């Protein structure tokens, strides 16, 4: 009985500590965002959101995500498929490379693109000759975002596909299905929840990315400003209400992501359980 009671005390204590921590470091800032954004009332809040620069930043963020996320899906599925279902030389190197964006600071990633495509960079002169701008333009922002979000889908799918093995695909092939039919009707349904989960995280990161994008964007208002960059500019101009108004959109995105993530995790758990024999 003593063991049981100390156990209960310990678990209550730990729960309190964890909740306090969560409250101070996560909930409080989140609440602050909305409180600050609405501190002058509803009208200034909405006028900050319909400001042309803000609208342009929102549009750019959506555009970048609309390019980066599909690229990530294609790459992620291809890489996970190759790694989970086949053995080939250089497999471990590929896995390491997929993880690289997680281990490198986003600022460094941005700088690498500056070095490659910037005016003084390796490909700078050639790009200038052909009148093609990457740095301080949308292509650079897309590149930086793709780099940073590179591992999300692949990382989610690799363990899932490894666990599922090749039996289902081989069964489909033995029944006469083509490779494409097998992928569409067997592989894709098997990984759909994991894929959605990866896409969700990838999207959240693509929209929220600051470091790498900040380096290559050049912060041109109305042109190369994404939402996170726009928030920073407004804040530096002491325009708190507008800054927090735009930030509240990102916070909302985060909350929606979290809710969807929980639903997906529940679904994934269900799928895993029912996959058992």
């Amino acid at each position, binding site marked *: 009985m003593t063991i049981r009671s100390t156990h209960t005390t310990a678990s209550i204590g730990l729960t309190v500590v964890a909740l306090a921590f969560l409250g101070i470091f996560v909930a409080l800032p989140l609440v602050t965002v909305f409180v600050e954004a609405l501190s002058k009332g509803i009208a200034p809040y909405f006028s900050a959101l319909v400001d042309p620069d803000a609208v342009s930043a929102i549009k750019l963020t959506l555009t970048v995500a609309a390019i980066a996320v599909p690229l990530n899906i294609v790459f992620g599925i291809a890489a996970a498929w190759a790694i989970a279902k086949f053995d080939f030389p250089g497999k471990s190197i590929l896995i390491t490379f997929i993880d690289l964006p997680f281990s490198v600071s986003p600022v460094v990633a941005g700088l690498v693109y500056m070095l490659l495509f910037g005016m003084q960079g390796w490909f700078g002169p050639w790009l200038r000759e052909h009148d093609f701008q990457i740095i301080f333009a949308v292509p650079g922002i897309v590149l930086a975002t793709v780099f940073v979000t590179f591992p999300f889908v692949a990382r989610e799918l690799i363990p899932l596909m490894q666990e599922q093995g090749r*039996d*289902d695909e*081989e*069964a*489909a*092939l*033995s*029944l*006469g*299905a*083509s490779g494409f*039919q097998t992928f569409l*009707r*067997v592989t894709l*349904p*098997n990984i759909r929840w994991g894929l959605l989960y990866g896409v969700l995280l990838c999207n959240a990161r693509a929209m929220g990315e600051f470091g790498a994008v900040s380096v290559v964007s050049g912060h041109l208002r109305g042109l190369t400003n994404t939402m996170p960059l726009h928030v920073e500019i407004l804040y530096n101009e002491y325009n708190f209400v507008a800054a927090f108004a735009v930030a509240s959109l990102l916070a909302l995105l985060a909350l929606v992501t979290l809710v969807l993530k929980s639903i997906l995790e529940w679904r994934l758990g269900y*799928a895993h359980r*029912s*996959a058992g*024999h």
Partner: protein
Amino acid sequence: MITLNNISKNFGSFKALKNIDLEVRDGEFLALLGPSGSGKTTLLRIIAGLAFPDAGNVAFNGDDVTNLKVADRKVGFVFQHYALFKHMSVADNVGFGLSVRARAMRPSKAAIRARADELLDLVQLGGLGGRYPAQLSGGQRQRVALARALAVEPQLLLLDEPFGALDAKVRKELRRWLRQLHEQMGLTSIFVTHDQEEALELADRVVVMDHGVIEQIGTPGEVYMLPGSRFVSGFVGDTNSLPVTVSRGAVKFHDRPIALDTGSIADGPALLDFRPHDVEIANEQPGCLPLVVTGAYRRGGYWRVEGTVGGISQVIEVDLDAANPAPEPGQRLALRIRRGRLFTTDGVQA
């Protein structure tokens, strides 16, 4: 008829199959029996077209299919863990092979469904077409997998450890049922198993494999009664093995003569293999084996008696009629070996 000619397959430096020759007759039920790592599953996958040999060729009815992919070989493959498509209903699983056909060859949706229902009736799962695999028991899933493989009207049915993941009772029922189904359909079938009982009960012929080579091919009776090697003798059925010496037609175990026909085995050290049921109690007779009983338990209509024989450490198992009282531990029994087989110590049958 399926002909395998000189098949070899390596995984890195591991030789999974070494120069395999095998003929499978039309309509027969063939078992590939062996311990894990013997190459039996690899051989099955090569026949299916799910794996490809490094050397040798595979022919179906005289046509070389070595380089044909699984989809073009018209084989039905049943996987050990069923590999049912979890997101599809049972009927959709069974109809899958028909639904992926090219448009010109594809039956209508209604026809596919009708065929699926027909096959589900055949495997005694009529009415369960609307369920999902997760809602079925292991034995039911196995039968769905079988129905799915049969839907494409294969010329050959391949089963990888078909009962491996089932509990003993279901396994036994399913075995009997599969044997009946085979007799009813007459479809050439090959199954892989590590369970010798399963192979002996089901198969017309058994292929015993070890370390990538075929040790013996024969009917269940031949493989059990006339094992061609020490490995087969030890792997198929329970076997006791005694180190003996052969000299001038007489078998001796530690200088004690054993009454047994030696056949044509050369003089020298040899192994005497005998089944637990090939002994009888023969007190006060020469040429017997003295067994010190360590334990006995009931196995159906007989006692399985475990004991030791002076001079060797291994446990000897013999079966004695349960009409008599069970032997007590410590009791000494004089056993006459009615029937045994001698192998030279390198494992080759004399």
